[in-house]
């Protein structure tokens, strides 16, 4: 009755993608982060290779409007100072930064393109980390904004987001003009995720310049859909679909929009620690399902998710 714990191997492998450029690559970043490269299920190190740990990014939002009250204690003073916020993220141990230019939104602050561009330059000057820059979601504005951001970050190998099925051409063109990458967004559907990748590749984007964001639904708000979509994307890539062999990025800061995090409810425990658990568990589900990058907001979550990844990988 001898038992042999058979190993499972796959023919496919996730592509390696590098974010940020150091001086050797013509940039000024203090480090570059490489993600992907695995040929097995996440953390299945007993039967596959996992050359890179999931990277932990932190988001910096350029308007207080997006910072919920529960985080004001942690981020309150920084919410008005995105450059300072970015510096703090570096101290808190983030591997990279996601600068969200939400204030450019014409429906909201409508900050001019030039001001956003200046902010990107300032952040690049003040922080050594690789940088991803997200637009405001208004197609028209983002077209101009991303062109300016691309020029402002020339040589830094930024990743620009989000490229969507209905709005990918201008952002992708902006990225290609200066050797940046893009984040390909799709809405919780494996076929749509594949579709946007195909559109980008047909447009001339190189596969090593794409990260895919299949939409991370937070814990309690449809996490199971994201969990299964990510698992299916990962297995689809491993069994050999080249279009899916793209690292996955999951924005887990969405945990801070969940009503169960934003409510004072003592029977569910004190609010801030509950929120940190909410974000941590969302991120743990993402990396266990197959995320190569997670975007987080709370510094404690960063430490926790890094420790979790290290322990899962057998390092702790």
């Amino acid at each position, binding site marked *: 009755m001898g038992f042999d714990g058979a190993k499972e191997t796959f023919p496919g492998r996730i592509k390696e993608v590098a974010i940020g450029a150091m001086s050797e690559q013509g940039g000024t970043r203090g480090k570059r982060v490489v993600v992907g490269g695995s040929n097995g299920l996440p953390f299945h190190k007993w039967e596959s290779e996992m050359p890179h740990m999931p990277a932990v990014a932190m988001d910096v939002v350029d308007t207080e409007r997006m910072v919920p009250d529960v985080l004001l204690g942690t981020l309150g003073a920084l919410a008005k100072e995105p450059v300072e916020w970015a510096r703090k993220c570096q101290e808190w141990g983030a591997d990279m930064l996601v600068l969200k230019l939400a204030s450019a939104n014409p429906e909201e602050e409508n900050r001019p393109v030039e001001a956003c561009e200046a902010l990107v330059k300032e952040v690049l000057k003040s922080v050594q980390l690789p940088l991803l820059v997200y637009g405001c979601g208004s197609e028209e504005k983002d077209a101009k904004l991303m062109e300016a951001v691309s020029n402002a970050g020339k040589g830094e190998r930024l990743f620009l987001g989000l490229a969507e099925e209905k709005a990918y051409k201008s952002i992708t063109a902006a990225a290609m003009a200066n050797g940046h990458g893009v984040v390909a967004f799709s809405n919780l559907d494996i076929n749509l995720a594949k579709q946007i990748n195909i559109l980008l590749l047909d447009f001339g984007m190189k596969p090593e310049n794409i990260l895919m964001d299949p939409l991370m639904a937070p814990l309690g708000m449809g996490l199971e859909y994201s969990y299964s979509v990510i698992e299916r994307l990962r297995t689809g890539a491993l069994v050999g679909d080249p279009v899916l062999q793209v690292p996955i990025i999951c924005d887990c800061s969405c945990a801070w929009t969940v009503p169960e995090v934003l409510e004072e409810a003592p029977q569910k425990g004190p609010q801030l620690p509950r929120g940190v658990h909410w974000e941590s568990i969302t991120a743990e589900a993402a990396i266990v399902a197959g995320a190569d990058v997670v975007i987080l907001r709370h510094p404690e979550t960063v430490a926790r998710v890094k420790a979790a990844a290290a322990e*899962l990988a057998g390092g702790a």
Partner: protein
Amino acid sequence: MPTAMEIYKLLPKKNCGECKFPTCLAFAMQLANLKVALEACPYVSPEAKATLEESGAPPIRLVTFGAGESAAKTGDETQLFRHDKTFYHPTVLGLVLDCAQGLEKVKAGLDDVKGLAFERVGQQVRVDSVAVRQSGATADVFAEAAEAACSQALPVVLMSEDAKAMAGAAAKCKTRPLLYKATPANIDVMVEVAKSSGCPLVIGGAPNLDELGQLAEKAKKAGVQDIVLEPSVASAAELLQNMTTIRRAAIRKKHRPLGYPTIAVLGSSESDRLRAALGVMKYSSIVLMDDLPREFVYPLMALRQNIFTDPQVPIQVKPGLYTVGEPTEKSPVMFTTNFSLTYFTVRADIEKSKMPAWLLVVDTEGQSVMTAFAAGKLTPESVAKALETEKVKEKSKRNEIVIPGMVSRMSGKLNELTEMKVTVGSRESSGIPKMMRTLSQ
């Protein structure tokens, strides 16, 4: 299930036809497809019968502990990935109460556990088990604590490696506790306790999965059927590898010695909490912890609810009229479907507008707006009926209904049926805050 040829080899090969099939091979093919029962063959040997019943058993045995409605069901899973079908039995979460703390603390702990119950998205969720650990306490204290625990409507795990103390404690429990645990050192005596008390037994302490399986086989041969396996979960990496390997062996290879539910006993550190969440995602049937603070156990239960949602059956919210903020007679009325994800998204977006509203949730059997509209489950008639049932016209005097932009086509008919002004809202939920600002005050 075995193949038709494997079954055929075990049949008498008489081709007598008494099973109503012309040949034994034809009968074997029907058996393989679960179309007939083996009893239809009058000549099958007892050995063949035992072999076939064994191979027809589920790959992971269903093990129940506790009694009555609160009994915990573990095992009987058939998948490695929830999207391939579903995970059936949500991870049982339990709090460990330590007798070293004294009897009073254990009794107080029992009340604490009962308080860890919540309503989430229309479902009752709770910490559904309690474990009593002997630690240094005497057998009498352990037995008394066990008796107190078993008098609650919660499935109980008794934790001791001393067979005599375990026998004494089990004797005080009428609710079929799970006995934790048999190890290579005590397996013979512990198996006797499980047999005489009729309780399920955890088997652990083996240095590797091969030996764990051998211990389980030994217990089974000695007459214990209901077994729970405890592989090493000393780190998250070990938990993932061992739980995955056991699940694969049971399901893919039908490896019987590992075809049982599993347990992970954890402490109270951050690493333990990580492993608890990992256990919920990765195949731990039972997770016991030393400490379950509310701010952690609540999100953990949300995770369990998410992971064990049947992908084929969407989570639904109860249809009805919901309030967002404190709406008045002047507040707008909007509707959406009872697919929980749709409902929560729409609700969150209305909240973002910081304007109170009435939100009518129409029963679409848990389908989203577009899917339900296409399938004819969201019609002007069903919306009109919901408006009437919920007496919406009495709650808001605007005589106006805001409908999802995706179903603008129903506006004419809905207006005709309800005589309300129909306003077409945004196509995407994210457009709601902007749209609400344009509604007349």
